[in-house]
Structure formats: C-alpha cells, structure tokens
C-alpha cells in the first residue's frame, strides 16, 4: 500500500467518522436508553449474586471479584461489541454495496467509522452510569494500580474488538448466499452473550466446562480483558494473550475469505 493510498484512506475515514459523530449526536435519547440497557443486565446480575451470597451461597469467587467484574463488564462489552452484520447484509441484499464498490477506497471504511464513532459516543454516555455504579459498590471494588495491567487491558480490548467485528462481518457476508441472515445474527449474539462472560463471569461456571471455555473465542472478547485486571495468575494471562491473538487472526482471515468468495457471487442489483 503506497503512502498516497494510506493518506487518502485516513482522510476518508476521518471524514466518515466526523459525519457519524455528528449524526449520532442528534440521537441523545437513543444513546442514553441504549447505555442504560447495557448497564442494567450486569446490575441485575450483581444484585442477584450479592443477594445470593447474603443468603448463604458460596460461589468459587469472592464478593470483591464479582462486584469489580460486573461493574466493569458493561464497559468492556460495549467497547468490544459490533453491529455491522445487519447493515452489511442489507446492503448486499438490496444492492446498496455498489456505491462503495466503485469508490477508490476500502468498502469497509463506513462500517469501521460507524463502529468507532458510536463507541466514542456510547462511552461518553456509559461512563457516568458506570461511575455511579462503582460509587454505589465502592466498598467491594478492587481495581489494580499497576499501569502494566491497564496497558494489557487496553491491548486485549483492542484485540477483542477486532475479533468480534470480524466475526460479525462474517455473519453479514453470509447474505451473499442467503436472503435473510437475521436468525444467524441473533444466534451469534446469543452465544456471544453467554460464552463471552457478559452475563455472568466465566469463573462461576462449572469447573468441568473449564477446558472448553479456555479455547472458545467468545470469552476473549469480554471475560479475558477483565481477567487481565483481576487475575493473579500470570501464566494463564500469558497463555490467554496467545490464544486471543490466534482467534483475532483467525477471525480476520475468515472475514477476508468470506468477503472475497462472496463478492464473486454479487450481481450488482443484490446478491
């Protein structure tokens, strides 16, 4: 890729980003309602688990771990989430992809700009809610002070976001072959919700599930980034970093493969 292409791509991306931010700023209530729903699910889990512990339940993790995990989970889930499949599938089905295919830049810039800009707007709405939650449960909150852990957290967040975006993209490209991919997308979201640890920490799942949970990709989107802050086991974090990188690479390759194969089937007026 030449310097000129990089410059042009960056310029288009920034223009799209600005446009998306301006558009999303028009929907303030939309943002607030969405982020409130994102916080609500872990909040319910948090209240229930604390209530269960108060009633004598003995989960394999401490109250401090559960509280910190469930306070952080909404931020991590939001930052690693992706919603491009539905829009990509629509643009393939309705032939709207044409407009992007003829432009002298990547077809995926719009999806990427939409993802980044919405996350910027969402984090601005979500953070006050999470801070309020953290203040309410501050006595049981245990966050590390070591900056290396926070750097690792940011790195795993970025890789998790790339992995989820790529998997989402793969689901969207299925529209090259199928008319309707909404059920597949719903299924993916469902699996991600449970196996990523967005609903409950993977550490409280039965120990027998351990080997499966360690290799499945979804846990590396939400559970693993939080583990880099909370886990004391350096070896498991080191292994996790390698597995996460491998899954992110595999997801990127899968996205590239389905896109190039699918594009051959695309017929302009719709797939």
């Amino acid at each position, binding site marked *: 890729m030449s310097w000129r292409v990089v410059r042009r791509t960056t310029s288009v991306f920034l223009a799209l980003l600005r446009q998306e931010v301006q558009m999303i700023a028009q929907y303030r209530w939309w943002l607030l309602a969405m982020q409130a729903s994102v916080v*609500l699910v872990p909040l319910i889990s948090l209240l229930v688990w604390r209530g269960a512990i108060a009633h004598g339940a003995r989960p394999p993790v401490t109250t401090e771990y559960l509280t910190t995990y469930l306070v952080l989970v909404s931020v991590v889930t939001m930052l690693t989430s992706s919603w491009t499949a539905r829009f990509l599938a629509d643009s393939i089905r309705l032939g709207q992809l044409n407009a992007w295919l003829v432009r002298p830049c990547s077809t995926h810039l719009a999806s990427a700009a939409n993802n980044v800009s919405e996350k910027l707007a969402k984090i601005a709405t979500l953070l006050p809610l999470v801070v309020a939650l953290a203040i309410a449960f501050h006595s049981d909150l245990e966050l590390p002070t070591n900056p290396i852990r926070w750097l690792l957290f940011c790195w795993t967040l970025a890789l998790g976001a790339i992995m989820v975006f790529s998997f989402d993209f793969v689901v969207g490209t299925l529209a090259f072959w199928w008319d309707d991919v909404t059920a597949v997308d719903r299924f993916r979201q469902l699996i991600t919700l449970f196996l990523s640890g967005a609903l409950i920490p993977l550490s409280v799942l039965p120990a027998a599930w351990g080997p499966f949970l360690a290799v499945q990709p979804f846990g590396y989107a939400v559970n693993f980034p939080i583990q880099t802050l909370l886990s004391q086991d350096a070896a498991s974090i080191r292994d996790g970093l390698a597995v996460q990188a491998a899954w992110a690479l595999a997801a990127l390759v899968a996205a590239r493969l389905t896109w190039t194969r699918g594009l051959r089937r695309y017929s302009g007026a719709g797939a």
Partner: protein
Amino acid sequence: MNRRNLRVTLIVWSRLLRQAVMRDLQFRSQAWLHVVASVGELATGILPVLILTSYTGSDPAIAHTAVLAVGIFAICTGLTDALITPGLRRFDSAIRRGELDLALIRPVPTFFYAVMRWIQPAELSKCLSGAAILIAASLTYQLDLRPDAILATTIWAFVGTVAYSTFWADLTLLAFWVRSIEPINDLAAAWRSAGQYPRQYFPRTVQIVLVSFAPAALIGSFPAEQLLDPSTALSLAPVVLIGFCTVTVVIWRRGLLRYESASS
C-alpha cells in the same frame, strides 16, 4: 367496543396470525433458526439461575422457586414475544415515519392494530420449553401442587403478562414525545430478565419495584411463589390489571394528540 367492532377485530387478528404463519412457512430455514435461537435465549436465561442455585445449599425453597420461576417466565415471555413485543419494537419507527397512519385509518382499535400487527409464531416455542421446565421441576422436586395454587399461579402469570406488556408499552409510547427511543425496548427486555430470579435475592426497594411500578417479578418469581404458597389475595389481581391498563390508555390518548402523521 360494540359487538360488530369486536367481530371485525377478531377477524383481523386471525388474518394477521395466518399471515405470520404463512411468512414463517415461506422462510422455513429462518423460522427454524428463530425457534432454535428462541430456545437458546431461554437456555441463556435458565443457565445463570441454575448455576446460581447450585451454590445455594441453605434454602431449598429458594432453589425450587428459582427453577419454577424460569419455567413460568419462559411461558409468559414466549407469549409476549410472539404476540406483543414485535409490534412494540416497531412502534418507534412507525411514529417517526408516519406509518401509524395505516393503523389509524383501519376500522379496528388503533392501539391493537399497531401493536398486534406483527406476530412471530416461532417465539411460541419458548412456551413449550417453559411448560417442560415446570413439569420437570414438579417431578424432580416432588412438589405437591394444589389446584388453588395452580389457579393462583395461572391468574398471576396472566396478570403479570398483561401488566408487564403495558409497562413496556408505556415506555415505547414515549416515542410520541422523544425522537428515536428504539433502545427503550432493550431496556424493557433487560429489566424483564430480573423476573426470573428469586425475589428474595434483591434488596427490599428493588423487590417493591419488581411487583409494582416495573412488574418484572409478576411474570416469573411471583407466580412461582404462589405455586408453592398461594397466600396473596386473588382479589388484588383485577386491581393490578385495571391499574396498569388505565395508565397505558391515558398515555396512549395523550400521545395520540401529539401525533402529526409523517412526523411527531
């Protein structure tokens, strides 16, 4: 509503149902995937509850209530997700794009048509799974279910289903006042999930909210409690029902006054 209107409404509803079934038959693979996803949603709901109860050895009554609550919750949410929530989820765009006009000009109650127009029969599979959970839980825990307890549970589950649907509708009707409020549906769905956990686990204030203002417990844990101990007076049920429906009717009428066809 007179007898003729009622007849027309029932005919329209049956046609809408037939149309929805035909749609699912046309897109069979998607319909099956929706069935699987629907059952999967139920599984993601029940697994956290089962995992939670597996760590609670001290009070078996709570564990029983928890599993029964998941079964009742599945039946109630299966019904609403098949008949009501698809329409509520489209309500925001119907108002923003002026599509509500189509409901206003029809000779049936507008609210009924706007909300019940979109039916997803595949979601009813959740009801079957919920019934299976209830039967399995009753056999496993060897529960001695009395007829009055079953009646109380059925009545409260019905009241809860209507009450929570009206609460959800109240939130959705904010679309008359606020531009683009579609994620309010996710908020209502997220809060609804609190209904499948035993009420005792929540702080006192949240417990009160769960059976009053935002009645998520009425579609899960509360009817489950009635199955084991039918102590709440049934005379309260119509009061709750009328109360929630009245609030929705008032909001609907106020909102409709603001509606300006293509934009509100």
